[in-house]
């Protein structure tokens, strides 16, 4: 069959050349504009969630000094902070933002396969965010059930936001899932069907592998959240009893009977654990590409990296109940889930070794994206190791619901992915905007953020060992908490405020660079993958001008001996440049 690129076949791709301001920047069907829309919305809500965490820290560090933080408010802050960060910031930013921007560019396509559905996806996402934020302003305020929304307390009288907040939260989640599904179908189909000539699956950069696999996980796991949201809405509105047991609520017998809160936990974590990898896998992929580019070296063990991504994806569905050891379960179940949890550490550790080995004897350029990527290796190893503690039933039981858990998940899926987000933004900023960022500001941003987050979360492990419980509005003066623990809490709060303020540097950098940044060339890092080879920077609508690129090699031909440059773009044919193996370079 003669080769015809999918994007060149008129009947499969809808024409949507933008001609007015509105079709170009607002109702745009261009994947790059949609990516930026996704990212801006996600970063906007992320900032709100950051603000909420500062309020929480103010209360914890200086108990009762701030009269506007009531216990009700505190729980609302905890809940909204968690939910926004995990779903509306990280999931949306990695898949809707980077997924949209990178998949077509890295695969050599002109756009997503279904641009109209892609546009719907971002607007439905915005709708979900609006519904979520509206819950701040309804009577009773947003829900304060904790981000896991466990029944019965999520819909029992006495919990903040029980009238409207919880309903808006569940509705917003359902709407978000619709938005994600529309985007997800696009990402999967585009990766499978719209790559350019010569781009075999195994020549794709790891970023695409990570985003692709995370999308598959999302498509299969988000229904679990949808199921639990629908059933909880019904328990709340029509008084069915899927999850709600018979209970005395605020001294009154509720009309619910016999429901099972543990059923909700199973459904929630059946989504919740894959969700960790929905956030982590794109981060794994992106960090691999940033490390290889700035170390001028091919990624160590590319095939192993791909298989590890797939193995983690598969395993992530059979570990969920390790979040429920304290909910009570058959000991054999606990044994099973502890075992699977330890097994999933194997491919994950393999990836970490490969990142470190990629740096080994590389020609490391400590530019800002690289700093963030190396910072990620530190925080991820750190959070990963404490995960092995918590994956074991006997260790988890005493540590459950303490600050040790807070420290663990913030290191592994808070700080680590956010460092990758920054690495990615700095790495692709020159391509997205055509301008260079300010290197000095970027370094300040990195070091303050990296050291600052360590000084927030490292002490929390110690608090956890002491037995300081998480989610408490005020600790009081229990005998197990020495004075040092109280002053530690104050110190953590100070660090948190510094880290939060540091992010201003990032925005100053972005705005300053957009206005007066040095013009970036098409390929400032000397990278090999296709997005750096577009005829225009930033890439125009359609990405590739008249002809789609053709790929002749993988994305990691860095420092190949016998070639004048230390990188060979993916489009350079085999007869024009050697490949790594020809010269005995070990892979």
């Amino acid at each position, binding site marked *: 069959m003669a080769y015809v690129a*999918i994007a060149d076949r008129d009947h499969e791709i809808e024409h949507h050349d933008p001609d007015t301001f509105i079709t170009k920047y607002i109702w745009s069907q261009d994947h790059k504009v949609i990516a930026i829309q996704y990212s801006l919305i996600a970063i906007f809500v992320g900032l709100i969630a950051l603000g909420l965490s500062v309020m929480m820290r103010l209360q914890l560090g200086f108990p009762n000094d701030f009269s506007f933080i009531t216990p009700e408010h505190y729980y609302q802050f905890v809940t909204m902070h968690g939910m926004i960060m995990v779903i509306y910031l990280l999931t949306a930013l990695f898949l809707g933002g980077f997924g949209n921007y990178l998949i077509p560019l890295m695969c*050599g396509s002109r756009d997503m*396969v279904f641009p109209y559905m892609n546009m719907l996806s971002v607007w439905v996402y915005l709708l979900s965010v609006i519904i979520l934020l509206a819950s701040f302003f309804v009577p009773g305020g947003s829900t304060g059930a904790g981000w896991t929304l466990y029944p019965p307390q999520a819909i029992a009288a006495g919990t903040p936001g029980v009238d409207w907040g919880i309903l808006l939260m569940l509705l917003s989640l359902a709407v978000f899932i619709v938005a994600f599904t529309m985007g997800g179908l696009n990402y999967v189909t585009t990766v499978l069907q719209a790559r350019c000539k010569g781009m075999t699956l195994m020549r794709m950069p790891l970023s695409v592998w990570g985003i692709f696999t995370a999308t598959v996980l999302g*498509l299969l796991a988000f229904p679990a959240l949808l199921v639990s949201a*629908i059933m909880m809405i019904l328990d709340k509105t029509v008084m069915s009893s899927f999850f709600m047991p018979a209970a005395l609520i605020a001294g009154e017998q509720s009309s619910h009977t016999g429901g*099972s809160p543990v059923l909700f936990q199973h459904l929630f974590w059946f989504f919740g654990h894959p969700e960790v990898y929905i956030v982590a896998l794109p981060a794994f992929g992106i960090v691999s590409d940033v490390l290889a580019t700035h170390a001028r070296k091919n990624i160590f063990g590319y095939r192993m990296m791909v298989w590890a991504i*797939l193995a983690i994806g598969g395993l992530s569905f059979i570990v969920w109940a390790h979040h429920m050891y304290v909910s009570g379960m058959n000991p054999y179940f606990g044994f099973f889930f502890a075992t699977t949890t330890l097994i999933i550490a194997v491919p994950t550790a393999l990836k970490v070794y490969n990142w470190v080995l990629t740096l080994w004897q590389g020609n490391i350029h400590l530019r800002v994206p690289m700093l963030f990527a190396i910072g990620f290796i530190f925080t991820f190893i750190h959070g990963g190791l404490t995960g092995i503690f918590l994956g074991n039933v006997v260790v988890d039981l005493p540590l459950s619901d303490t600050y040790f858990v807070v420290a663990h998940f913030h290191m592994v899926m808070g700080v680590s992915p956010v460092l990758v987000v920054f690495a990615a933004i700095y790495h692709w900023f020159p391509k997205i905007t055509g301008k260079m960022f300010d290197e000095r500001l970027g370094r300040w941003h990195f070091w303050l953020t990296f050291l600052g987050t360590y000084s927030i979360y490292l002490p929390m492990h110690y608090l956890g060992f002491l037995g300081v419980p998480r989610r408490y509005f005020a600790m009081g003066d229990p005998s197990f908490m020495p004075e040092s623990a109280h002053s530690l809490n104050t110190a953590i709060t100070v660090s948190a405020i510094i880290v939060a303020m540091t992010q201003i540097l990032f925005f100053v950098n972005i705005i300053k660079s957009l206005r007066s940044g040095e013009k970036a060339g098409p390929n400032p890092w000397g990278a090999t993958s296709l997005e750096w080879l577009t005829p225009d920077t930033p890439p125009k609508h359609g990405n590739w001008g008249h002809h789609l690129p053709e790929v002749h090699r993988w994305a990691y031909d860095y420092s190949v001996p016998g070639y004048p440059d230390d990188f060979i773009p993916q489009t350079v044919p085999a007869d024009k440049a050697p490949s790594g193996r020809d010269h005995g370079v070990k892979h």
Partner: protein
Amino acid sequence: MTITLIFLAAIMATVIGWLLKQTLNTQPWMASAADDAVSGRSLDTHSKTIALTTFLAVATSLFALFISAYTMRMHMADWSPLTEPNMLWINTGLLVLASIAYQLTRNAAVAAKQSFLKPGLAISGLFTLLFLGGQLLAWQGLYASGHYMTSNPANAFFYLLTAVHGLHILGGLYVWARSTIKVWTGAEADSVRLSIELCTVYWHYLLLVWLVLFGLLLST
């Protein structure tokens, strides 16, 4: 959760098995003329077919999770089984007929028999709407006899499962309406063929889901 796990194991085995097959014997760092000639389409089928297949996997995940929840909730003390209205047998028949009608319409569209399209689409849609109407009647009957959502979890699950299935059918009817309007305004068989083919797959799928759900409801 066993049901969901079995389903997921199957889907993951398919996806990962297929991906591994693509990746096992490759050495991407080596120059390869064979790889250079690869078209960048992994599957020789229309993108919309892939999107629908992926969506069916998502929907299956959703239904499998509902069924898992059903089987877990079923074992709690307050569960009292619901006697399904006989109406459901008729409805099942209607949905089978809708599926058959859609299959015949599809065959006609593939064979470019223009004259078959209008009656074919009309009959498929009619049976489907009758099915939905029948489901609503079944609801009404249950409601009239005092089977409320609040009175028992078995009732609540009945309303929930049928509603979710019905909503999926409504989504299908939206696409059906679009191709029907196209055909009525004089579109050629060729221009609606893909849409009709995909709808046929979707209708068969929803019939299958309904048979599974109905079987589950009857047997418990």
